[in-house]
């Protein structure tokens, strides 16, 4: 039985064409792009091509607006720290409670360093309150950083509108688009977004390569200083093989953009409907009508996510969960908690994230086996009786708090 990979928001398989494109840069094209000789200049040309491919996918006006980095996390940190350093008279960051740790943990640290951080809250569907946002925009704000698409639920934030509102007040706008790039069309030249982070391994390029889009004219301070690579905006000899790979992956993503929003979305919808119609006491989380085409996050009540994943894994199916156990903390996912999902459901959330490599047969198989797994675990649950949740689950089982 072939394994079924439904964890593409965690990372993706490299496209074979991407691997093929990058391999020569380990062997014959090993040169350093900064060198004058032929070894170097070949690599220099390849980097230029890759930059153009990334530019095209993002709809950026100039290829020099693309800075290659080592990952999405680096791009996020570069953007936020740059905005603070370039504008020492501004001390405030606006972000959201549901960001990826790449932004949230950085902001927690900035707060300890004395900066002011506002974290916009979300409603039960993971949506922002735009009035709250508007009320926080003032001249103390150095940067707004809001994710384009949420990695757990796929929920999209109205970043175009938010960027325009920030720009109107002269405030820089950054978006962590690590999950959005390659899945939804993006045309940066027609937006007010100043900075955008992306990461290669979410769009079928290798791990350890990312990019930061930096709008021409946006004030900038580098994170890494040293050589003149990336026009001095990110020092360090270029990871040429991976940059070439990212370029190729961006080209392929443009080609597959329609497929992503028709075929992949169709598979996702069928998977979700199939599960919801066969299993009681479960519901999709996030803003279901406004989300990435590939993501479905379902909360299964009265059972715990890691247990579900282990049983899925035994059948060769890979997903992920927002349970405390899998997040490595005592609390379930901050995204689920922010949306006010009750604990009895938050621990049982499972994210299925698809890609263009998934098939109809795979979706059928998952729909077929998930009901059995859920039933098996509910049989063990103290919140569950023979055929449904205990009459009043929260009251039927009230453990001594340990």
């Amino acid at each position, binding site marked *: 039985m072939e394994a079924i990979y439904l964890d593409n928001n965690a990372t993706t398989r490299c496209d074979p064409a991407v691997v093929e494109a990058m391999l020569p840069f380990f062997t014959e094209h090993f040169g350093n792009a900064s060198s004058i000789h032929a070894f170097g200049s070949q690599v220099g040309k390849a980097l230029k091509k890759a930059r153009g491919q990334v530019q095209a996918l993002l709809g950026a006006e100039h290829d020099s607006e693309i800075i290659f980095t080592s990952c999405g996390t680096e791009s996020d940190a570069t953007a936020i720290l740059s905005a603070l350093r370039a504008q020492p008279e501004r001390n405030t960051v606006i972000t959201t409670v549901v960001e990826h740790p790449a932004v949230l943990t950085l902001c927690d640290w900035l707060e*300890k360093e004395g900066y002011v951080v506002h974290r916009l809250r979300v409603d039960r569907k993971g949506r922002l309150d735009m009035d709250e946002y508007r009320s926080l925009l003032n001249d103390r704000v150095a940067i707004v950083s809001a994710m384009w698409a949420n990695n757990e639920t796929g929920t999209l934030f109205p970043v175009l509108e938010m960027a325009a509102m920030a720009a109107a007040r002269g405030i820089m706008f950054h978006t962590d688009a690590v999950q959005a790039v390659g899945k939804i069309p993006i045309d940066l030249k027609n937006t007010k977004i100043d900075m955008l982070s992306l990461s290669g391994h979410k769009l079928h390029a290798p791990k350890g390569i990312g990019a930061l889009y930096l709008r021409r004219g946006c004030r900038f301070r580098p994170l890494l200083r040293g050589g003149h690579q990336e026009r001095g905006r990110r020092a360090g000899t270029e990871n040429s093989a991976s940059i070439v790979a990212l370029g190729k992956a961006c080209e392929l993503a443009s080609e597959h953009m329609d497929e992503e929003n028709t075929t992949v979305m169709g598979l996702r919808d069928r998977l979700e409907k199939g599960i919801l119609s066969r299993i009681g006491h479960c519901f999709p989380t996030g803003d279901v009508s406004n989300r990435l085409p590939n993501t479905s996050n379902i909360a299964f009540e009265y059972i715990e996510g890691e247990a579900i994943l282990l049983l899925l*894994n035994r059948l060769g199916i890979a997903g992920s969960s927002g349970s405390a156990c899998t997040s490595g903390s005592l609390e379930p996912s901050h995204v689920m908690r922010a949306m006010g999902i009750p604990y009895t459901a938050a621990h049982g959330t499972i994210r299925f994230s698809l890609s263009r490599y998934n098939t109809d047969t795979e979706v059928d198989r998952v729909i077929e086996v998930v009901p059995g797994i859920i039933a098996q675990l509910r049989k063990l649950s103290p919140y569950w009786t023979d055929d449904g949740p205990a009459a009043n689950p929260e009251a039927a089982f009230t*453990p001594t708090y*340990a």
Partner: protein
Amino acid sequence: MWEYSDKVREHFFNPRNSGPLKDANGIGDVGSIQCGDALRLMLKVNGQTEVIEDAHFQTFGCGSAIASSSALTEIIKGMTLDQALEVSNQNIADYLDGLPPEKMHCSVMGREALQAAIANYRGEEWSDDHEEGALICKCFAVDAVKIADVVTANHLNTVEEVTFYTKAGGGCTACHEGIEEILAGIKAERAGPGEVSPPLVSPVPAAPAAPVSAPTAAVGTPTPSRLTLVQKIRKIEEVLESVRPMLQRDHGDVELADVQGKTIYVTLKGACSGCMMEVATLGGIQQKMIETLGELVKVLPVSHMPVEA
């Protein structure tokens, strides 16, 4: 995914004694839905002999919570209540060939459910004295509550001291920032509102210049005057005696090997030898030696002793 032993997997995939138990006469409900673990243990106890004739569980939780519950019911079936009360969380973990550090709390929950169920059978009130905090040190499975307790009780000031008392921080060092935060928080509390550092200052890498006071009474006060060799060795033995219980708790031990000038050679035994903690343990012992002897000494493992010609 966690590194689960085959035994854990086996008990998770095929849990024993799961589901409600008819005519149970002792029931223990423990856990916290917030943390994602909750367990109901049901016992059928023979009223005459106090033997646990049957035990079932229902668990809301992860793989190791379910496996721990299953293991617990297997362990206690056939035991008398008094025997069952001797079962520790370590017994449960050992039965499963070990649990990852992040998951040890699952076995703790099992033991608590057992206590609660027995209390319920006996008509007693059971209250839980165990409080769990966020896991700070993953290398040694030490949580925030434990660190804060030890810091407060022993007036600790540095990460090194915390490592000596709890092991936390003695491995990969990733948790040092977390430990520093706990130390800074407790220090701020001790200092009172007047002395709290202003918010704009970066977090304090707590490392006071002042020498640290001897933490336990058993160690005695620093003696600045010269000691005879016999007195010195006696003092050294005293220090080793005072740290021994802590090492033995982790199945280790320490012996004095030799004293050569200002260098004390010791043999670390059992779990301590060769473990990541060796350096931290020796560092801690050395600090105590310096305080007790009132002079600068070095504590080294016996393997560092120069070979005699």
